[in-house]
């Protein structure tokens, strides 16, 4: 199948959508599909062979901040040419509601069109005012995908219509191999916390609140705290009874994250809310590290209500301490959770995600129609064609 993917944001900048598009494109290529990605980028930058640059994005004020996007007749012409030359069976745009290449592609393409919505955004005034114009672009989308329940809600509210839920993937093989940090694994029980240390809803306070009880039972226990934030502040405010048992690492690299999972007896996710999915849980499970997590909806779903990882009552430090102690004392249960977790993570592997995405492609391309560039009947389209060099 020939697939054209449109990434709305600067290819060389870091960002969740870019990572998603890159992983998807690579998974599709591995499956033997032909893939072309259209993305904004600087002309000088060296790009992967399957990426086509749509030119340098321009900063414009939008929705209360500055967005770096490709808009205007020149970009529209590039999108049109990319679609015409690509001879695609399906075009897959990301974030079609942001004013970007994706919206242009919706507007220009005629034929099988799939869209993925990533974020949950509040409806802006411009979106309400330009509803009619926006509709002419987005109502051509044959199939919508949402990466989370929240993103799906956004689709229902802003675009009308439903979306298929296909969550983000984990590249399991990145987490399967890797060696522990020097000096680990150690005796006495080791736990790991990952995430911003100064963000309340990541729940570090709940975990530190449980530590005195855990230390009282197991004096040799150790907690590794990794993630960005004010490291010194956390160190200074540790209770004296647990100071020797908590090691604050600060921000660690992706490679060290894999090593950290291999070094500890369990990963603890005390998040108090605001999580739509829990990708870190899956990364831990893919690395074979048992998970103890708060029982918020998103986590309970990923852990299949406790069969693939242990749960404690959200926000309840003493329940966390109880569950952590029982898990630290029970090696067979940890091994079971490690196996079950790895099996569960496999279900969210990128190869599985890509298989589901391909099913969406197939369910809208059965007619055999190719994607064509089409501007007929669109007044603005005629203007942009007059402005182009053809």
């Amino acid at each position, binding site marked *: 199948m020939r697939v054209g993917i449109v990434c709305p944001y600067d290819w060389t900048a870091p960002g969740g959508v870019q990572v998603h598009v890159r992983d998807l494109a690579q998974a599709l290529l591995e499956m033997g599909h032909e893939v072309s990605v259209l993305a904004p980028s600087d002309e000088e930058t060296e790009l992967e062979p399957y990426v086509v640059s749509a030119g340098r994005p321009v900063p414009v004020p939008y929705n209360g901040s500055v967005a770096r996007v490709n808009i205007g007749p020149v970009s529209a012409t590039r999108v049109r040419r990319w679609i015409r030359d690509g001879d695609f069976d399906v075009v897959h745009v990301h974030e079609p509601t942001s004013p970007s290449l994706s919206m242009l592609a919706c507007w220009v393409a005629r034929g099988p069109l799939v869209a993925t919505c990533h974020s949950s955004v509040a409806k802006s005034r411009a979106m309400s005012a330009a509803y009619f114009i926006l509709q*002419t672009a987005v*109502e051509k989308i*044959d*199939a919508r995908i949402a990466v989370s329940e929240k993103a799906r809600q956004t689709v229902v509210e802003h675009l009308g219509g*439903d979306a298929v839920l296909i969550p983000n993937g984990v590249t399991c093989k990145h987490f399967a191999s890797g060696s522990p940090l020097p000096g680990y694994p150690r005796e006495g029980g080791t736990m790991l916390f990952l995430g911003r240390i100064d963000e309340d809803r990541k729940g570090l306070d709940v975990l530190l609140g449980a530590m005195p009880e855990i230390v009282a039972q197991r004096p040799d226990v150790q907690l590794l705290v990794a993630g960005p934030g004010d490291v010194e502040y956390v160190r200074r405010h540790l209770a004296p009874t647990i100071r020797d048992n908590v090691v604050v690492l600060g921000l660690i690299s992706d490679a060290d994250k894999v090593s950290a999972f291999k070094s500890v007896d369990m990963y603890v996710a005390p998040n108090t809310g605001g999580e739509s999915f829990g990708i870190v849980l899956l990364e831990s499970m893919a690395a074979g590290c048992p998970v103890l997590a708060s029982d918020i909806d998103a986590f309970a779903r990923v852990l299949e209500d406790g069969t693939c990882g242990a749960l404690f009552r959200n926000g309840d430090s003493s329940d966390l301490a109880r569950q952590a102690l029982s898990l630290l004392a029970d090696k067979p249960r940890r091994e079971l959770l490690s196996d079950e977790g790895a099996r569960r993570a496999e279900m969210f592997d990128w190869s599985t995600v890509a298989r589901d995405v391909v*099913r*969406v492609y197939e*369910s*809208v391309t059965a007619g055999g129609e190719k994607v064509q560039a089409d501007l007929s009947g669109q007044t603005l389209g005629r203007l942009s064609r007059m402005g182009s060099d053809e």
Partner: protein
Amino acid sequence: MSGWLVPAVVIAVIVIVFVIYLSMTAGRLDRLHHRVEAGFSSMDIQFLRRSGCALEAAESGVLDPATSLVLMEAAHNARAVPGDPIERAQMESDLTRVLAAAFGSTEDVNEIAESDDGSALIGDLSGSVHRAAMSRRFYNDAVRACRAVRRQRLVRWFRLAGSAPYPQSAELDDSVPAGLVDR
């Protein structure tokens, strides 16, 4: 002379804007009808593939004879009435119930998938039931979008839809059998 010129120009501008609006709406409606048609043909093909895979599964010999017989009949029935949407929806829903009974447990499906002939069979069948369910969802989405425009007063008064039939949503049970959900 200028006494009638200003109102005339105002009226002319209003008429021109109105005509542009109508023509844009007609174009929009045309694209929506196209999406409905494309969605319908995709859905039609996906459901035919589903019953095709069900037939193959029934004929393959990996299932017990009783299941094979019921499955074969249901799949044949679903393929026998292509022209009658209501009858077909009924037959496809019946096939869904048989598939749910035949492939309802993950353990059974795993067992079939581990056999030599079974793995490709389960793979094809699972793909086809997922795709059929999705294609119906996408078709109904297109129908809903198209109807929303066709209900507008101006669209009705100026007959912008022309002779295109009012789109009908497809209502049937196409839930994925429990044993195939994660495949």
